[in-house]
C-alpha cells in the first residue's frame, strides 16, 4: 500500500495541489475545521485545560493532601489562588487533580468505546444472519440494563472489585455501558457500505470477505468514528460528574470534578467558590468538546455549507 509513496511522488502531489483543482482530503478537512471559529476556540480551550490538568500543579505550592491550618474555608487570596476548602486544602490543587481524573476518564472511555463499537458493529454487518441476530440481541439486552444500579453496586465494593482504584472501576463500568449506540450506528453504516459498487467490484473479483471488511469498510467509517470519539469523551465526563455527584462514582481519596461539585452543593451560600470553580471547569471542558464536535461535523460532512461566501459586502449593498 505505502510502498509506492516515494518522495518524488509526494512532491508531485503537492505541486498538483498547489496548482489548482486537486486538494488533499486531509487538507480540506483541516481547512473546513479552521473555518469554524467556534470549533477552533473549543480546541484551544480543551488544549488549555489539558495542559492545566498536567502542569497546573506548578501554579501552587500546595498539594491536595496537605492541610493549611491557618487558612480553613478561606476565599481566594494570594496564598491560595482559588481559596481553600473547609478542611483547609488548597482548591487549585484539588481542581488540577480533579480535571486530570475527569479528562483521563473521558479519553479512555471515549477512545475504547469507539474501538469496541467499531469492531462489534462491523462484525455484525459483515457476518449477518444468525451472528447478527445474536449479537444484536446481546446489544439490546445491554441497552435495557439499568446502568446506574450496576455502577452503584460495583463502586461500593460489590463483586470483589475492592482493590481497584475507584476511577479505574468507574472507567470499566462506564465503558461497559457506552458503546452500544455507536455499535448499532456502525452496523447500519457498514451494511450500506457493503452495497456500494466498489465493495461489489471487490466481491466479483473474488477478494476474500475478511479483506474487504478491513480494506474497504473500516477506513470508510473513519469519519463517523472520529466524531464519535469527541462525543464519547463528553458523555463519559458528564456521566462521571453525575455519578460522583450522587455519591456512587469516584470515592475519596480520589478527586474528580463531580466529587468537588457534589461536596460543595451543601454550602453554596457560605463557600460559593468551592461550588462555582469546579462547575465552571466542567462547563469549559464539556462545552469546548461540544464546540469542537460541531466543527468536526462540518469538516467531515461533504454536504455541509461551510465553504464560505462568494457574496462580498459591496455586492450585497447593490442587491438590496
Amino acid at each position, binding site marked *: 500500500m505505502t510502498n509506492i509513496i516515494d518522495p518524488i511522488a509526494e512532491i508531485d502531489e503537492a505541486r498538483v495541489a498547489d496548482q*489548482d483543482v*486537486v486538494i488533499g482530503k486531509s487538507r480540506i478537512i483541516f481547512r473546513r475545521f479552521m473555518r469554524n471559529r467556534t470549533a477552533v476556540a473549543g480546541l484551544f480551550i480543551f488544549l488549555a485545560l489539558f495542559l492545566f490538568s498536567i502542569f497546573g500543579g506548578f501554579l501552587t505550592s500546595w498539594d491536595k493532601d496537605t492541610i493549611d491550618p491557618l487558612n480553613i474555608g478561606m476565599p481566594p487570596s494570594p496564598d491560595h489562588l482559588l481559596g481553600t476548602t473547609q478542611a483547609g486544602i488548597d482548591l487549585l490543587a484539588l481542581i488540577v487533580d480533579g480535571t486530570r481524573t475527569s479528562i483521563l476518564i473521558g479519553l479512555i472511555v471515549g477512545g475504547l468505546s469507539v474501538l469496541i463499537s467499531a469492531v462489534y458493529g462491523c462484525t455484525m454487518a459483515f457476518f449477518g444472519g444468525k451472528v447478527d441476530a445474536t449479537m444484536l440481541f446481546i446489544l439490546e439486552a445491554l441497552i435495557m440494563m439499568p446502568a446506574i444500579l450496576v455502577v452503584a453496586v460495583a463502586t461500593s465494593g460489590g463483586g470483589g472489585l475492592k482493590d481497584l482504584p475507584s476511577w479505574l472501576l468507574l472507567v470499566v463500568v462506564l465503558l461497559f455501558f457506552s458503546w452500544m449506540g455507536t455499535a448499532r450506528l456502525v452496523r447500519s453504516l457498514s451494511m450500506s457500505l457493503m452495497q456500494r*459498487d466498489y465493495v*461489489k*467490484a471487490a466481491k466479483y473479483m*473474488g477478494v476474500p470477505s475478511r479483506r474487504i471488511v478491513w*480494506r474497504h469498510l473500516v*477506513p*470508510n467509517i473513519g469519519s463517523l468514528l472520529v466524531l464519535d470519539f469527541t462525543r464519547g469523551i463528553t458523555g463519559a465526563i458528564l456521566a462521571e460528574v453525575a455519578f460522583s455527584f450522587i455519591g456512587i462514582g469516584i470515592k475519596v481519596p480520589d478527586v474528580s470534578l463531580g466529587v468537588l461539585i457534589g461536596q460543595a452543593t451543601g454550602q453554596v451560600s457560605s463557600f460559593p467558590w468551592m461550588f462555582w470553580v469546579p462547575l465552571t471547569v466542567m462547563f469549559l471542558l464539556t462545552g469546548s468538546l461540544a464546540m469542537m464536535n460541531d466543527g468536526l461535523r462540518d469538516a467531515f460532512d461533504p454536504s455541509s455549507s461551510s465553504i464560505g*461566501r462568494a457574496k462580498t459586502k459591496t455586492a450585497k449593498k447593490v442587491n438590496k
Partner: protein
Amino acid sequence: MSTNITPAERLRDAGLYAPGDAVLSVRDLNVRFNSENGVVHAVRGVDFDLMPGKTLGIVGESGSGKSVTSMAIMGLLPETADITGSVRFKGKELLGLSDKAMCKHRGNDIAMVFQDPLSSLTPVYTVGTQIIEALTVHNPTMSKQAKEARAVDLLRMVGIPSPKDRLKAFPHEFSGGMRQRVMIAIAIANDPRVLIADEPTTALDVTIQAQVLEVLHTAQEETGAAVVMITHDLGVVAGMADDIMVMYAGKPVETGTVEDIYYNPRMPYTLGLLGAVPRVDTATKQSLVPIEGTPPNLALPVTGCSFAARCPLVSDACLHGEPELFPVPGVAVPGVEGQALGHKAACIKANELSNDADAHRIFHAPPKPVSKFDGVARVERDKVLELKDVRKHFPLLKGALIKRRIGTVKAVDGLSFDIREGECVSIVGESGCGKTTTLLEIMEFHPDQVGEVIIGGVSNKVATDHKTKMAMRKEMQMVFQDPTGALDPRFTVYEVLAEPLENLGMPKAAIKKRIMELMKLVGLQPDHVNRFPNQFSGGQRQRIGIARALAVNPKLVVLDEPVSALDVSVQAGVINLLDKLRAELGLSYLMVAHDLSVVRHISDRVAVMYLGKIVETGDVDDVFDNPRHPYTRALLSAIPVPDPNLERTRERIILQGDLPSPLDAPKGCNFATRCPVFAALPAAKQEKCLTLEPPLASEKEGAQDFACFFPDGELDADMLVVHA
C-alpha cells in the same frame, strides 16, 4: 442587437417592456460561488430573451452553468452566491427581490419542473393536497370546491387516469413518470407565463420520457407559456425547441434557431457535441467524435476562448481574449419576426466552418477498429457465456409476524442466450424489466441457481470449490454504471488496480509492470497512479474502472450502463475506447443500457427484455431497422433523434401506462396490457394474446427471434402522435 453595446445599455434596454416583447429577459447574468478552490464564476454573462409561447432549449454539459442560470432566475440560489446582472419578467426586475417578494412570482408567473420526480413531492401529503397548496398560495380567495375542480382538471390535462380518485393518492402510489406528470400539473396550476424545465426527463425511461415530453407539449399548448428547457440531450430538444442556446464553461457559445444549430453549427464545440452523439436511426459504423480534455476551471480567470484547450482548430489568436457572441454572417438578420435570437457563435473562426463541416475530420475521430473475430462466422466462434433457462423469482410477502406469500415477482423468467468471442451483446428494456437482475445472476453465479450459467465452458453447477470459482471469476469482470461509486475513495489508482492482481497472488514487480501497461491501454497518464479517484474527471474514473476490469485479462467484460453517468463529449471517448479494446484484445461484452443509440453504435447483437422475458433478439441492425415486436417498435420510436426536421415529422408510438405490477401480471402475452397492436385487434384475435404465451422464434432462417403473434398488425391510432 449589436454586441458592441455596454452592459449598462443592455440593462436599460431590457427595462423597456411592451406587450409582444420577451416575457423573460436575462441580461449579463453572472453567478459566483465560493468553493474550496476559491470563488468559482459559474455563470459568466448569459443574455437571452424568451418570447411568449416559444421554447428555448439550453444545452450544455454538467458544470456548464445551465441549471445555475435557471436557479438564479427563480431566485433559488443560496444566500452565499453572488448574482449580478438583470433578470426581467415582463419588464420587472427580479434580481435583488427579497425571498418574500419573489414568492409572488414563483409558481405564479414563473414555474419550474425539476429533474428528480421521486424527491420533489412530499411523501406525507396526498397529491391533491400538494396541487391545492400551489393554488392556495397564489389564490387565497378561491373556494375549496373550485380548487378541487381545478386540481382534477389539471390532473386530467397531464393525462392521469381517473383523476378524481387519484387526487387522494399519495406520491408513493405513483410511478416515476406519473409523479413527473403531477409535478408538471403543479407547475402549470397557476397558468405561469414561463415554465422552466430542468432536465425533466433525465431520470425517466425512454418510453416514459416520450410520454412526459408529450405532456409538456400539451401543457405548453394549453397555457401558452414560454418554456425554458434545460437538457444535456440534444435529441430531447430537437423536436421541442424553437431556439437553442449552447452553453460551455458558464457562457453561451452559440445561439440560434434549432435549424441553425443542428444543420449549420458554427462553433467547434457544437459541432463536436453533435458528432459525439450516436444516432439510433442509422447504421453507420463510424467512430464517434471524441472531444478530448475537460472544461476549464472556473475558479481561475478565463483569458482566452474557454474551449481553446479542447478545440482542434485552436490557433494563437484564440488564446488572446475571450470571443464575444458574433452574429454569423449569411444568415437571416437578427430580430426578424419569430426569431428571438439571431444565429450567433462565440468563435473567431465561425466563418471558416462551412455548412458541410465534417466533425469527424476536424476532431480527428479514430478509424473504426477491426477485430480479428470480425471475419469469422458467428457459429464458428467459441461461446464465452451461455445462459440456459435462468430464472429468478422473488416471493412477495405480506404480514408482520406471519408472512403470507401474496404473489411472485418474476424478475427473470426463463432467459437463454449466448455470447460468442469478440462480440458485444446488449440487453435493453425499461427499468424493472429484469436487466440488472440478469447481470446479478451471472455475476453471483452459484450451484443452487435455477437454470445454468456457463462461463468459459464451465457450468455454475460444478462451481462448488473455491478454485473453480476463482477460475470462472477470472474469465469475467464488470464495469459499473457510476464511476465514482465503483472506486473506493480512499484508494489510490495504484491500489485500485493492484487489488485484483494481488488477489491472484502476482508478485509485486509484475503488478507494477501490469499497472503501467493498463494505464497506457485505457489512455491515462502512467504517472497518475498515485492520485485518488476524486482527482479525476468522470470519464477518467470510468477509464480506471475499465482498467481494473481488464487487469486479470478476462474474456468477457460485463458493462452495466457504462456511459450513462458521463457527459456527452466524454461518453464518446469512452465508447471509442471500448470499441478499440474489443478489437485489440478480442474481448466480448455483455452490456446493459437504456440508451438505445449507444447500444446501436457498439453492439453486434441485442436482446429486448420486457417483464423478465426476452421479447426480441437478433443482430442489432435487423432489430433496429426492422423491429417486429410492437414493444421494440415503441421503444425505438420513443428515442428522440438530434435532427429537428425528422423529429417534427416522424410518427411516434406513445405507450399508455407503466409496467404492470407483478401482482396482476398478465396471463398470456406480458405486453398485452400496453400493446398498441393488441388495442387495434378485433376481439376474436385479442383472445389469443390474452390466453397463450407467444414463443420466441424467428420467421425465417437468419432473421431475429421475436415473441409476438401479430408482428405486422395495425397500430392503435390513439397511441400514435405526429407533431405538425
